[in-house]
Each structure stands twice: as structure tokens, then as C-alpha cells.
């Protein structure tokens, strides 16, 4: 980063406001996207609720506990959609030369790339989801304050992991100038995070914990709150979050250096 936290914060606010203005000029388009996301959320919720009318446990979790997993997934996923939206344009930004402007301007190109378009409408859907999560957390007999703290910390850690994934995708766009699907495969694999990781068979669970750590991003916070995550696993999650972030940033820097030595 090029330093100057306040300046980057102001820059971010400015971009967010511009994104919102741009979205408002596309009323029909934005309404469609917003409605689509609400449809998806409501349908899944209805699905989970409908299932529980005929059974009282799934993989040992009650309806409310399963809902916590689902909501936690949504919080993490939506925050990423709101704040790291810019990555979805990364390939276009590189191919159409906007990235060249990012590079010659005195602010962090990474910030501009990853956070360049803040999805304000998604932020609107995030609010009710957050509220619902809070309500649910209060109703669930959890592991007390310690559990709540672990939940919050692990959710933040999940966001760090999601950030790392987005940085890596942006770096790939800079490096290869193709690979438009990198971010979509992430979306598809993230789909698995909608359910508690315990529903999966052992080898899949293993993969989701270590290889593509979707479980660490979506299941770990809820499991910690419910008192079903040992300190060792919590430690693993944080180590993974820190390691992945560092690795992604290094990959970004090397990709930019390579771009500067080979782009034509």
C-alpha cells in the first residue's frame, strides 16, 4: 500500500458514492440484480425451513443452528460482494487499459482494483441479514461471551480469507489477462458453505477445511459460537487467514511486477 490511510479512506468513500450514483442511473438493471439476490436468499431460507418441518435435526443441528450456518455464510458472502465487487471487473479493467491509469496514480492500485466498485445495493440487503443473525445469536444458547467473541473474530478472519481469494483473482487477471472464470469458480465452490460442513462426507470435509477452506470461512464461526470448535482449530483458522492474506498480497505484487515487465 502506498500509505496515507486517511487519503485511501477518503478515496474509498468517494468511489463508493460514485458507484451508488452509477447504480442509480441503471435502475432497471440494479433492481433486477437486487431482486435476484433476494429471491435466492428467500428460496434457500424457505428450503431449509421446509426441510425442518419434516425432521428436527440435520447432521446433529437443529433448525436454528442450521440457520446460523446459513446466515453466517450470507454475511461473509455479502460483505465480499459489497466490498470486493471490483474484482469481477478485473479482466475488463486490465484489457481496456484502466489498470494503466491505476498504476500511474499515487494511490494503491490494489485498493482501486479490488474495491473500485462498492455494491451499495448489496449493502442494503446486508443490513437485514446482519439483523437476523444478531436475533438468532441471542436466541441460540451459545457459549456465552467467549463464544460471541470467537464468532466475531472468526467472521473477521473469514473476511480476511475472502479478501485473500479476491486479491489472488485480481492478481491472476493482471498476470494472465484472461481467466475470467476464476472468480466464478470461487462463487460456485462457496455454494458448499451454505450448509454446515458436517453434512459432507469425510474426504470432502477434509478438502473444505484444508484445500479449499470454504469451511473455515463459513462454518467455523458458527461452530465456535455453538461451542463445537476446539481452540486448536480456532488457532488453525487464524493462522490460515494470516498466511493466505500474506501469500495473496505477495502474489499480487509479483503479478504487478510481471505486468510491468511484459505488458505490451
Amino acid at each position, binding site marked *: 500500500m502506498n500509505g496515507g490511510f486517511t487519503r485511501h479512506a477518503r478515496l474509498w468513500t468517494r468511489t463508493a458514492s460514485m458507484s451508488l450514483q452509477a447504480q442509480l442511473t441503471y435502475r432497471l438493471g440494479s433492481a433486477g440484480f437486487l431482486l435476484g439476490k433476494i429471491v435466492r436468499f428467500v428460496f434457500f431460507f424457505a428450503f431449509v425451513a421446509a426441510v425442518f418441518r419434516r425432521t428436527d435435526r440435520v447432521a446433529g443441528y437443529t433448525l436454528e443452528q442450521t440457520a446460523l450456518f446459513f446466515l453466517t455464510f450470507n454475511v461473509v458472502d455479502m460483505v465480499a460482494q459489497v466490498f470486493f465487487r471490483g474484482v469481477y471487473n478485473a479482466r475488463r479493467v486490465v484489457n481496456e487499459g484502466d489498470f494503466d491509469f491505476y498504476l*500511474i496514480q499515487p*494511490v494503491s492500485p490494489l485498493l482501486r482494483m479490488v474495491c473500485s466498485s462498492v455494491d451499495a445495493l448489496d449493502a442494503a440487503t446486508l443490513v437485514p441479514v446482519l439483523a437476523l443473525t444478531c436475533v438468532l445469536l441471542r436466541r441460540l444458547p451459545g457459549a456465552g461471551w467467549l463464544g460471541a467473541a470467537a464468532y466475531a473474530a472468526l467472521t473477521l478472519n473469514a473476511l480476511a480469507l475472502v479478501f485473500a481469494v479476491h486479491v489472488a483473482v485480481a492478481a491472476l487477471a493482471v498476470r494472465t489477462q484472461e481467466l475470467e472464470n476464476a472468480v466464478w469458480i470461487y462463487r460456485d465452490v462457496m455454494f458448499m458453505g451454505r450448509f454446515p460442513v458436517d453434512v459432507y462426507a469425510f474426504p470432502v470435509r477434509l478438502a473444505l477445511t484444508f484445500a479449499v477452506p470454504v469451511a473455515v470461512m463459513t462454518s467455523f464461526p458458527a461452530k465456535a459460537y455453538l461451542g463445537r470448535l476446539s481452540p486448536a482449530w480456532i488457532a488453525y483458522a487464524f493462522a490460515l487467514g494470516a498466511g493466505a492474506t500474506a501469500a495473496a498480497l505477495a502474489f499480487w505484487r509479483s503479478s504487478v511486477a510481471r505486468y510491468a515487465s511484459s505488458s505490451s
Partner: protein
Amino acid sequence: MPPALAVDALTKDYLSPIKEPGLLGGLRALVNRRYKSSRAVDGVSFRIEEGELVGFLGANGAGKTTTLKMLSGLLTPTSGTALALGRVPWKREPEFQRRLSLVMGQRSQLWWELPAYETFRLNKEIYGLREREFRASLDELVAMLDLGEHLSVPVKKLSLGERMRAGLAAALLHRPRLLLLDEPTIGLDVVMQKKVREFVRGYNRREGAAILLTSHNMADVVELCRRVIVIERGRLLYDGPLETLVARFADHKILRARFSAPVDRARLAELGAVVDADADHATLHVPRARTAASAAALLRDFPVADLDVADVDIDDIVRRLFGAA
């Protein structure tokens, strides 16, 4: 004061993967990709002082844009050095970037859906301008570029010329000391080209900023630049006053004659190179030193009704220069 640009033996090689034909070739490339190296810029050196406005000429693919990209810090050279405003550009230090601007023809940094004013405010944050500086700069640019009523219209609704001028304003809000202009008038109509040229000259004089400009539009070069740098296939071909370049290549003058009676073409050829002739009209290229003698001979030996002596067009010269490349 250090020079605005000090470039020494700047060289850039590109590696490009060799695409082998066919599916088998594609598979082989997956495992063992082979590259070929091509030299885009080859040992280019020059200096540009503060306040100079220099034209940077060359045919397509001569290495102009690659050079500009290195000087703005977008590309790291393979070898050689460059200091721009006393800094190494490709280190991309914020202190340097705050004093630089690169304008690339039709590439715009303006947000398409929003009025240009919104992008201006974004650039205010990017360059950390104070409100007062921003206002002063903006007012001046709006007046000079005649942008007034266009500021509140979404960029996508602007004409190409309006968009180009708004893009220039966005690039200059922070009053860069070094301005790299890549084809600033491309796609504009003649009136608009003139406006942009006047603006560029004005900015150069008022701010004393150094400007390096590439253009395929000879009018840009002729009207703006006293000094030009010419590169060909990545090598420096010429660096000096535009007039000298013209003189070097304009080793002949043009005689155009109209005749009152048909003339013998073979006899005309004794005076100079006949480039165009019919029954009552001819155009000849004659060596500079023999202009007067040739004109006299023409008047004496032929039924001349009208005679015109002209310098070679600079457009022609530069075109010839590039044509040779």
C-alpha cells in the same frame, strides 16, 4: 533544476510465446512454452528540459508507446536508465506520480455513467488536492477547455471531442510538471483538433510543464513542437529542431508549370525529376541548389504560362521518413 526527462540507453525487449499451430502444438505449448524475444526500444537516449514541448515521432510499432509507458512507470525497461523529474519512473513513487500525467488518446479514465465532474472529484482524492487548489485548477481548466455546461452531463452523453477535453481536464487537475501525450487529437474533427492544440500550448506556457507528445497528425507537430525526436524500429533516428529535419530531407524544391502549348516531356526531364506531366502541365522536383537555374531554363526554353516554386510539404517529409521505415 534537474531536467524533466533524462533518458539513457533505454532498451525494452518483449517476450512473446510462440504459438504453434494445431491442437498438438497447443498441447506441447502447455507443457513447454517457447518464447521469442523482440526488441521494441533499442538504446534510446535524450534529455528534455523543464518547459520544453517536444514531438515524439515514428511509424506505428516504432516504439513510441513503449517508451512513453516506461517513462510513466508502467513498464520496467530491460536495460538502460531514465530519470523523470529526477526520479526513476518504474519505482512508481507517489511523489513522482503526483507530478506526472499520461494521456492516451481515446482511452479515458472518466466514469462512463456519471458526469465528468464526479471523476474530477475522484482525482482530487487520488492526488490529495486541497479544496482550494482543486477549485482553482478546475475553474481554469473549465474556462480554457470550454467545458462549462458539459460538466453535469453523464460522460456517455458527451460527443467525442467533449469527452476528450474532459479527459484532458481530469488528467491535468493536479497540474503535472511532466505531461506525456499519446495521440491527443486522434479522432477529432479539425476545429476540435485546433482547440486541443491551443490548449496544450497554453498549458505548456502557463505552467512551464515539460510535454512529450506523439501524434500521427502532422498539424499537431508543426504547430506545437519546435523540437522533435524521431525513432524508427526502436532506435533514435533524429533529435533536433523541426526545421533542420525538414531541411535535411527537403533537399529539393517543387516547380509547377502550366504551358500555353504542348511540350516535349523528354526535354523537361533534363531539368529535374518529372513527377507529373500532361500536355499543358508539369510538376518537377529539382535539387535545391539548382532551383534558380532550372526555373530560368524552364522560362527560357518552354512556353510557360504560369510558374510556381514551392517548398516540400512537411507532411510529405515525415510521411517519407515513416514510409522508409
